[in-house]
């Protein structure tokens, strides 16, 4: 795609009260420019993404004014539910490679954590809905956990697996988080700790669900030529692809398990000539523990029903052959939707991931899921050793 990530900026990443999303977004963009060694005024494109429940008053196109940016060549809101971050970065990469903009900032911000309140106050809001999809609310299926639980229950039943499969994911991801100073939960999680935690929506327990934070993440996308002169090692965008299955919900199909990653994987591997065996690490969207299992299978790392092996054998954990969610992901790290896996991939490919650094990390797969697995984007990122 002839574009590169040259700046990464974080703001907030806390469970304490913060300024509102628009201010966090401004701070993250400024931090990303500083990280890239560029003045903010270099930015000539802005792509804003936000949680699907938020409106323009929360975070919108007027971020431009807050940043004091004049005469932008691109200013856009990218909305694809949880996949909005990669949708934003893909748009930036396309604009840069087409010459429509030179340096584009992509930013996500959200403040779901209200100190003293349960997360359901933010994520389980009352809804009625329209049409037959709204029957989920008639059934009491509010919030993401209830819906992902339907996928998890079906996955375990179809493949004859027990809940320990989910435990492996939560425990492995926590092992990575222990090595990441920015992670929300760093205390080791034992098998007994996992099963002692309360159910949220069976088979999902507390540690199968993301760790929400208030915060913002921004990245700066520019051309590989400009990236070569940057303050940081460039991270090249090798390919990006979407996959939105639209699976019918009736006999003969399986909407619970169909994953947009299968379509995205064909495009990503097809355009780059890479294969799953060429990937050094995966940063999967893991708002719930079932997600990385289905992503591993959708991307062809293993046959359907066998993703547990990557976790059970330790391959997904620190020191393993296929490191997954190396910053603690959403589960133990921090839930800033699609930007969480992007930020971690950039740190790894720059070689700045500290105690959790994966040796010789050159090629990373990053995924974003929206809806449940309805809306999906995948991106291949490469370190400077990749020729673009």
């Amino acid at each position, binding site marked *: 795609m002839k574009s590169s990530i040259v700046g990464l900026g974080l703001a907030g990443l806390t469970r304490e009260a913060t300024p509102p999303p628009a201010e966090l977004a401004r701070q993250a963009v400024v931090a990303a420019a500083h990280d890239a060694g560029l003045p903010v005024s270099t930015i000539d494109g802005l792509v804003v993404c936000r949680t699907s429940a938020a409106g323009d008053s929360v975070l919108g196109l007027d971020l431009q004014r807050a940043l004091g940016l004049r005469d932008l060549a691109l200013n856009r809101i990218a909305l694809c539910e949880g996949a909005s971050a990669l949708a934003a970065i893909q748009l930036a990469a396309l604009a840069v490679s087409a010459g429509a903009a030179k340096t584009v900032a992509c930013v996500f911000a959200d403040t779901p954590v209200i100190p003293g309140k349960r997360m359901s106050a933010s994520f389980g809001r009352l809804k*009625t809905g329209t049409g037959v999809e709204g029957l989920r609310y008639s059934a009491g299926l509010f919030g993401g956990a209830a819906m992902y639980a339907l996928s998890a229950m079906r996955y375990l039943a179809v493949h004859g697996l027990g809940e320990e499969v989910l435990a492996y994911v939560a425990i492995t991801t926590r092992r990575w988080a222990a090595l990441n100073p920015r992670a929300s939960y760093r205390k080791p999680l034992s098998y007994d700790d996992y099963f002692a935690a309360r159910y949220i929506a069976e088979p999902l327990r507390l540690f199968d669900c993301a760790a929400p934070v208030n915060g913002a993440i921004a990245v700066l996308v520019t051309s590989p030529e400009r990236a070569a002169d940057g303050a940081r090692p460039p991270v090249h965008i090798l390919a990006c692809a979407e996959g939105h299955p639209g699976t019918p919900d009736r006999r003969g199909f399986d909407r619970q398990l169909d994953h947009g990653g299968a379509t995205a994987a064909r495009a990503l591997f097809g355009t780059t000539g890479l294969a799953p065996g060429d990937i050094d690490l995966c940063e999967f969207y893991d708002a719930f523990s079932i997600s990385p299992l289905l992503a591993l299978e959708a991307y062809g790392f293993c046959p359907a029903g066998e993703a547990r092996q990557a976790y059970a054998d330790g391959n997904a954990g620190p020191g393993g052959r296929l490191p997954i969610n190396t910053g603690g992901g959403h589960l133990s790290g921090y839930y800033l939707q699609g930007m969480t896996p992007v930020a971690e991939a950039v740190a790894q490919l720059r070689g700045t991931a500290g105690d959790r650094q994966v040796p010789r990390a050159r090629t990373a797969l990053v995924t974003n899921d929206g809806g449940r697995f309805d809306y999906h984007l995948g991106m291949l990122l490469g370190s400077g050793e990749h020729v673009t």
Partner: protein
Amino acid sequence: MSFPPIPEPDAASAGFFAALDAQRLELRRCTACGTVHLAVLVCDACGGSGFAPFLASGAGIVHSFTRLHMAHHPAFAEALPLTAGVVELAEGPRLFARLVGQGPCAVGAPVMAEFSDCDGRGLVVFSLIAG
């Protein structure tokens, strides 16, 4: 008395919800290819847009389910843990629904539709069949 939230009909589901408000479960068969749908305007199997409505038998199986341990709506506060999921009707289409009754709940378990009136709107839940 607090009722569960009932969706507003859209263009695709107007017939479905009108029937449900009369305590009937209505499906629609594509007149071109015979595929049975819950509520669509276009048949995803053949692209057809002509449908013939008919009543479902009410029988189905559990496609997937969960037990929720927190109520997000007052209508479910006394039902915890709340069992709900996706039911695959004998005719093929699936829908989200609450699961009730004493029968064992598992993927593949047989269920039967039960209707109730919620202040003029119809609600269908599915009862797990014992034994």
